[in-house]
């Protein structure tokens, strides 16, 4: 549950509902309703977005292709997961969900494989561009914002160099 809604639940132990609570709840509801159409569109376009993104990524960085066993297949898998958690966050209207459930620990995995900050950012910027290109304006915008969250989370200084 979103932190602000948890806070509201606590606050209600000492006070009643206020106008601003209703505005926040209605805004949250509208966002959840929109999530269904984003989910449908992303499900239908995911294949196109991800495959095109990964092809572009390794065309740009051919040296990385052989870095690990089946790097390309694994990138496809990982990028799909990042997109799916982005979608879950959109449905719940809670950006923290994706971060808590996947992005933070995935950051550690990426760190361990030493792909480098630039390569990772590039990968998800490409995915972001493709998302905007292949999805309708509103839906693409919502996914793109979550990809931004992912990029910010992954954008780290490795602990050990």
């Amino acid at each position, binding site marked *: *549950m979103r932190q602000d*809604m*948890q806070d*509201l*639940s606590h606050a*209600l*132990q000492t006070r*009643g*509902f*206020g106008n601003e*609570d*209703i505005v926040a*709840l*209605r805004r*949250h*509801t509208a966002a*959840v*309703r929109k*999530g*269904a159409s984003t*989910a*449908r569109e*992303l*499900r*239908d376009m*995911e*294949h196109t977005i991800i*495959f095109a993104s990964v092809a572009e990524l390794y065309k740009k960085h051919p040296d990385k292709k052989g870095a690990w066993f*089946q790097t*390309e*297949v694994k990138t496809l898998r990982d990028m799909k*997961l990042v997109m*799916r*958690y982005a*979608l*879950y966050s959109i*449905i*719940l209207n809670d950006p923290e*969900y994706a971060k808590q459930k996947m992005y933070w620990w995935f950051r550690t995995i990426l760190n361990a494989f030493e792909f480098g900050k630039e390569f990772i950012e590039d990968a998800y910027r490409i995915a972001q561009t493709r998302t905007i290109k292949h999805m309708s304006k509103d839906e693409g915008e919502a996914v793109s914002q979550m990809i931004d969250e992912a990029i910010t989370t992954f954008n780290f200084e490795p602990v050990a160099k």
Partner: protein
Amino acid sequence: MHESLEKMIDRARQRHFSDEELTLVSRSASRMEHGCDVVEKIRTSERELLTRSVSKALQKFPNVEAENPAARDLITAVLTMGLRQAALAMALDDSAKYSKILVGLQRPIWDAQFEPEFVQNAVENLRDESMATLGKALGRQFDQVLKPMARFLTINAYLAVTKDAVLGEATEDILSLNPDLESKFADARRKIHEDLEKYLIYAAQGVLPDGQERIFRMLRTYHEAAARSRYGSALMLEATEALMDAARKYINPGPTVEFFSDLQRIVNFITLSADVVEKKDAMLEKVTETLYRRHPDKLKSAENIKELTKRDMWVVLENCIYGTHAGGRERMLEVMSEFNLTLFRFQFGPRLIIDAYQLLLQTCRAELHGGALASLEPVLHKAIHFVAISADLAEKQPAMLEGLAEELAKKYDAFYGRRETAKIYVIRDQEQVLHNLSIGLLPGSKHLTVGRFSVFGEYLAHARFDEKMMHESTELLEAACMTNLSAQSLSHLIPRMRLTRRYLDLCSSLAPREEKILKETAEAILAKYTTFVEKYPDGVAKVSRDLATMLHTAAVSIIPDGEMALHRGLEAFYDNIIETRMDKGMLDFAYRALIKAVTTHLPSPHKDWLLPILETCTTFIHAAADVAENRETILTQSVDAAFAKHPDMEARFPGARRKAEEDFDLLLRRCTLALVPNGEENLADGMWIFCQSLFASGYGPKFITEAHAELRKVFGKYSDRPTNTAVGAIMDRVVATSAAFAELAEKEDIILHEATNVLYSKHPQIAERHRNAKAKTQRDMAQVLRHAALLGVPGAEKRFITLMRTLTEVITKGKFGAAFIHDAYEMLRGAADAHLPKHAKKQLARPLEVTRDYLSLVAGLGDHEDEILTESLDKLFAKRGTQMAKYMDVKEQTRHDERMILRSAALSLVPGGEREHARLLELMGVVVQRNQFDKPMLVDAYTALTDSCTARLKHGPVKQLVSTVQKSVQTFA
């Protein structure tokens, strides 16, 4: 209560959602919008609403405030907290926080020691006042969220004033049965008291939205500590029995029905856990000893192999214990999925694994007590099938799929449109299909597997793969399985795989035609219903999307357990139709047009699979729209008529009118949904809960019978002919069943008393041999009476069969003997016949006869099963030993199969048992096909078996059993 979106997402485990699941997101958003409306209204009327509710209660119970001057403030504070959190929970469509805060109210209610009727009255007033403030439509929805709070507070108020007496008596009872306990442990009294109190606390939380998960967390902690427990399983059995007895004695069961169900589930789990934990070491030692005596070559396969085997078996056994509780199934699924990886990694080989777990099952059967076994065996059975299939796949799958992928990749080099990675994806998809099929055998797995298969099918349809190629890929998979896997694995895998293949074929066939089907249908609708175009500027797209969802959801109902998705989808559709009062004519036209387009464009056999489902959906949608047209009138008129005849009811029972309206509304919904698959079971489950509360409600048979008859009459008046025929027929059965239940509620005690008095005067030795024999017999007989009455509604057979299976275990373990059991259930039938009025007698007569026959037959089987099986196998091997020697472990396997057939044939004599038996015959058919058994040999085997049965069994319909077994052999041979 429905699942929250967060829970749905957690369960999806990194996959997309199917079309049907996405409709749940929209439904959730609708509920949230209504929740926001509730918050808005509550905000302005909270103070008056609460003041009125509390004042009314204090007026009715004036002594409360006299005894406790802070009563008004305290109850107002509790209700304020509950009301606000309920409104927030509805606006967020998430009850996680709501439950947590309600749990915090448990202690203040206990400490306040209010008269429980006062608390009950106050919360019922709050529900009435909320309904009045919010209006009927919104009020009913909010009441669904308020209800758990009302139930929770009421249960705790009753518990507050009785728990000391319950705990005191139960503790005394245990200590008197175990006089040396306190000398062994100085704190025994306190510890027992604390433990029992914990069970009461959690049983009272079961009614909360996340109540089952809460209970399971406590049970798991109990189970994990059980190995260090100072008490043996016998003492735990006594303790839990004493707790149940004392609770029944002191707590009013009427307002606390759910509490008793949850306490019973807690008791079942604890006695099972204590029994297994106590015998675990001996059982696992016995299993591993026998296992490695049979497989000495495997002893050196790993260091400490015996210990490793024991550890693995304990993982399975422990998770099966968890799986017996609804809250523990998810945990069981998770662990078993991981265990599957262990089997793949370590490659023990299927022969060893199958033997190990068959031995484990046999050992559990021999060592555990009847009640424990009755809970464990159904879950353990399923887990063993899963483990055996996984071990088989672990050995054969890699080579099998590699070959298959090579063949497909070569033939269709553009497979999945990605040449370089084609093989990897073929293998991944087929692995997923096999894994889903096998994990689908576990209890509670259907949400997981149906969701996965739905998305896979919809993905295939979207990706537009070649139909022929897709058909061939699953055909090759089935053929590869048939060649490589063992008969046991195939018997469970193949029937499920064939249904799944059918679904995937249907998806591939729909893919190139779907657009045309949807476009044609949408255009026809929009041409006739032009206002739709005005309402929705993107009319064709919206209608097409809704119809596509219906097509996909109808298609997914073909796969094993897929009917769950169709039922859930139509449930959401029902709510939508009711809420928006969708036009009946338009819906009829739309779904007829869809059926026409499918008939025109989809080839056979695909359309032959889909059309009957669409026809059913169309009948349902018509009925739902018809109900929506007059729902308010039906509810108001029938409730008014019922209360006009019984004007004292409202004064005697708080909230009676609102509850009647709520019950009738639920009944309309369930009877309409009973038209679609899974709906009948749902109706029976709902009726079971309703009837349980009826038993303790004190409403009396006259009111119940007349009120339901009114509902039926008014429903007939306001529904059109097709709806009155389809839904009315179901409602007729519901009305008759509730009337029988209401009679039973009045007469049950005297029936049980009379039956057991006569029984134990004839068989006094049984009462001497078993502790509390008479009380336990009465408990079992009450279950039989209630389940027999429930058989009046469609879909109740499943519950009846579960009860029969449980009683089979209890009777077999208790060695009561066929003569005693026959007498017991004949006396029960006689007493019911003597005391019930004609209509109830008619409803119960046949089920009670069947129960008597079945139970005396299985009691006889329990007495002689070993002799029957040994004798028949000896005969068979004397005649065909050489021929049979070519099959591995044939004697043991034949013994296992014959036992299964015998029990299943006996069960086929009870309602619903034929379907279960037919399913077993289908499995046996696959075994026979795989092993290529010849018919004369099978006929010889089962002739020897039936001869032994005829010679040894003296009670029950032995001839019928023999004839069923003989016919069964003809079917699978």
